[in-house]
């Protein structure tokens, strides 16, 4: 049960009602963690979501380690 910090941005931040939180999760991978939180906060389904672990883009099936910082990246719209 890794203890992770999660950062929420944009539409996910609004759904979660917070910028960030720390929690202990039963999820083994970033993808499983997203599904756990999507159920809890009723996240909208988004195309081309990405995930970053410890401030670098990473894969959804990367295993989570204790102390990881995880951020979900909704479709970007800079410029």
């Amino acid at each position, binding site marked *: 049960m890794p203890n992770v910090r999660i950062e929420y941005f944009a539409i996910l931040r609004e759904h979660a009602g917070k910028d960030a939180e720390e929690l202990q999760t039963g999820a083994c991978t*970033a*993808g499983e963690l*997203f599904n756990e939180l999507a159920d809890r906060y009723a996240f909208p389904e988004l*195309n081309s979501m990405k995930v970053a672990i410890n401030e670098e883009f990473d894969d959804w099936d990367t295993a989570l380690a204790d102390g990881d910082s995880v951020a979900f990246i909704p479709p*970007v719209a*800079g*410029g």
Partner: protein
Amino acid sequence: MMRFAFSREPVSGADIRRLVGDDAAGAYVAFEGWVRNHNEGREVRRLEYEAYESLGVKEGERIIAEAGQRFGGASVYCVHRLGPLEIGDIAVIVGVSTPHRGEAFDACRYVIDEVKHRVPIWKKEHYVDGDSGWVNCERCASAAHDHDHDSHDDPSGDERQRGTGRRQAG
């Protein structure tokens, strides 16, 4: 490095130009993204940008380093605004100086294309009719809600990994 930055204050073309100025440079190309009064058929009143700043700066610096390698010796700066913006404000500005003009155009275009694609920045538009929405997110979201809310149980699946958002022009 520090060639990519976020700013909560207005930015000007003159600021960027000063940063890349160089007596050996013969060509300067600047791109500015301006806040338009409309987007996809809706009248826009104002908007907000939000970013994952630490990762955004890293990715921005990577893009600029790539541009320098691909387009011999381009000197590049890019600043992206965050927070509330009004119509006509500069949302993003890229300035490039090079010895010759071909590389300046190519490097500038490369940087803005990649920044729009890769840097974690989000835009919320507030429309004249009082509605608002996150660009690239709201339509997918509502479409998904409308017909099948169950399909999001595998975010690591093909659709999420490979799908590309609609490209934002402008």
